[in-house]
């Protein structure tokens, strides 16, 4: 009994979190107004390089990188407010994949790699993403090469913003198990990256196909820490996507409430109808629950066991809140909700994407059932 209670995430808020919460709120609001978001939907890259550069200068990419490597030396918990406010404004820069990749590099990179690359990442001079592979992908080493690395072939799907970053952290199978390597996008042969059609129009993902691609030994990460680093990366991705969803849920509820406050039907403001008011309240309550779980996950992230429980709860609850809020958001906008011009639709699509990344609610809950009962 008590072991369950003691395994749950606890809430806390660092000064740094509060400060970052403030600046993230302001920057994301200013840099990602909805007309920009919609303009970027038709942009190949999907984000504004100047905004991305500014984010680098703000140090957001180095929040959880130790000071020795030029970062702020804070935790993932301090990166959560950034992801939350990007979600509130449907912002889609490669913040999450870059942070996940940097964290894996931090755990499993060689000293040389960490010293050479992490300071650049922290400074915003080097952007990263992950190509860790999905079910059905088959990135494999055909054999070792004279550069102390491997020749690899195969496919990795859903590489977030793969065509817009400097380096890609790839995972592939070798005779002796899974390996990680950080390769330079420039070195990829033409056509190695194909843009995929994804549900979320605000983001970009690519299919990476390699055949006989040479990975240098100096690009390989420490084989002994691969497993632990990947597990850590999963948690980082999960909590940051949870944050994006909590932020998105907040916005779509706000956006819908605004419509309910102003739109009239049958001569009455539609927000006065309980059939719309009460479900929106329910959505809001789900958001509040999710936000409590999110900041518990942020605070408990580093704790053994408890951190994992808190992150899984946060991701599951955030999906529930964002999906419901956006779904009702579409419905409550009536005919307009069924048009592409209604932002609720953008949110619903983004909610689906976010849910699929780093485990959806169903798989996190299945894991929780194992862990807790």
């Amino acid at each position, binding site marked *: 009994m008590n072991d369950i209670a003691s395994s749950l995430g606890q809430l806390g808020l660092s000064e740094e979190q509060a400060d970052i919460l403030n600046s993230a709120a302001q920057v994301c609001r200013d840099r990602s107004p909805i007309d920009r978001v919609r303009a970027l939907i038709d942009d190949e890259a999907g984000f504004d390089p100047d905004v991305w550069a500014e984010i680098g200068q703000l140090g957001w990419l180095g929040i959880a990188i130790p000071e020795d490597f030029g970062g702020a030396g804070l935790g993932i918990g301090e990166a959560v407010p950034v992801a939350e406010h990007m979600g509130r404004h449907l912002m889609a820069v490669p913040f999450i994949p870059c942070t996940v990749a940097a964290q894996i590099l931090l755990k499993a990179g060689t000293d040389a790699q960490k010293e050479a690359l992490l300071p650049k990442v922290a400074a915003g001079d080097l952007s990263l993403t992950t190509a860790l592979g999905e079910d059905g992908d088959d990135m494999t080493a055909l054999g070792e090469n004279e550069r102390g690395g491997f020749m690899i072939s195969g496919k990795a799907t859903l590489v977030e913003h793969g065509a817009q970053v400097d380096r890609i952290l790839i995972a592939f199978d070798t005779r002796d198990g899974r390996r990680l390597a950080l390769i330079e996008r420039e070195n990829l042969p033409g056509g190695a990256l194909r843009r995929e059609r*994804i549900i979320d129009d605000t983001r970009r*993902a690519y299919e990476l196909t390699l055949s006989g691609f040479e990975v240098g030994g100096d690009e390989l990460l420490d084989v002994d820490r691969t497993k632990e680093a990947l597990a850590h990366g999963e948690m980082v991705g999960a909590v940051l996507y949870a944050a994006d969803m909590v932020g998105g849920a907040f916005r779509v509820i706000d956006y819908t409430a605004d419509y309910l406050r102003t739109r009239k*039907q*049958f001569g009455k403001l539609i927000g006065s109808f309980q059939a719309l008011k009460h479900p929106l309240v329910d959505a809001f309550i789900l958001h509040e629950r999710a936000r409590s779980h999110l900041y518990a996950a942020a605070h408990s992230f580093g704790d053994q066991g408890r951190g994992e429980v808190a992150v899984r709860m946060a991701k599951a609850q955030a999906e529930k809140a964002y999906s419901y809020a956006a779904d009702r958001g*579409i419905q409550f906008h*009536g*005919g307009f*909700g069924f048009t592409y011009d209604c932002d609720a639709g953008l949110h619903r699509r983004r909610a*689906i994407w976010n849910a*699929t990344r780093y485990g959806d609610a169903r798989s996190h809950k299945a894991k929780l059932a194992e862990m807790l009962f």
Partner: protein
Amino acid sequence: MTQPSTDPSVEEFGRAADAWFAENVPDDPGFMLPLTFMEVGEDRQFDFLRDWQRKIYEAGFLGAAWPAEYGGGGLTEAHQKAATKAMRRHRMPILLNAIGLNWAGPLILDIGTEEQKAAYLKGILSAEDIWCQGFSEPDHGSDLGNAQLKATREGDEFVLNGSKIWTTQGNYAKYMILLARSNPDAENKYAGLSFFLSPMKIDGVRTQKIKKLTGEFGFTQTFFEDARISADCLIGGEGNGWKVAMRTLEYERGARGGQAGGYVSISPDLMEIVELAKTAERDGASAMEDPVLKDRMVDYLMDMHALSLGNERKKMMPLVEDYPMALPLMSKLEFSKLYRELSEFALTLLGPKAAYYVGEPNAADGGWWARSYLNAFSATIGGGTSQIQRNIIGEHVLGLPKTR
């Protein structure tokens, strides 16, 4: 059209239909066909479905129960039902001209003039004349009785000014069934309405495509600027627009007969979802191996089956005596809700692959499920939102006081 010299029996007709569809249902054209008549977004889809409907009509399996003198088959509803059954059995692509076949056609047959019947019915069946529907307006979504589009009488003509929205196939349609305000000063808002069979391809009528939630097209907004139509376009008589519109909705709901037959939409079938659950991989195992997802499948199966049982039960008087209108009034709410929930559930079954959308080679079933989920909102919103449906059931079935 090829018509048998002496009327075939329903069984013969059904067998003939079965054989014909087995033979003629077209193969996958290589692009995604619309699930419903509201999703005809591309010309190639439109052309394909128009040809398909004509082909069925010419084979005699559409409009079989409509009078022969107007281009129908001159047979019985039972004959058409048998043909429709065959269509379902062979999962044919949908019929294109939905508004014509299920709304305008039955209406004209029912209360149209001799001239109107002669002029319109055959073209509806052959899909030569595409029809669209002009009920909703931008600012009065669900509030039909409040339609504001002006139809000002000038001698033998009406001058149309205003705008309609959610015009299905508006950019293709030749005619629109139009609800308009012919008398702004009537004693009540309903009495001021008239109903027209109104041409689309005339001066002063302009359509603008609407991009949907799905990213596709299928509806237009239709603008009327001093568009002049003949008073002969009236149906049901000036000032009776509300009655005619309500009657038209009854055809749509199937509460009245007269439809030409066939179907105009395909909804996700639970059996396809069962298939999906077996094949979909979640965390390295088939989704079907997850007892929690399996339990939800049982729920959906029960709900879907309850819906089809309800369609049987509603015909059994002793089993609907308490609230005879309940099942008919419920079906739209129930069906549209289930349709949305099922498509959304399918995305859960897909797990990580739910990240893909239509047109992506890596997507399961070509992204069909995500599109189906987003499209489902047209059913929970269009034709009276689910919220309004609940009011109707609460007030008309349970006799609860009005909310307004």
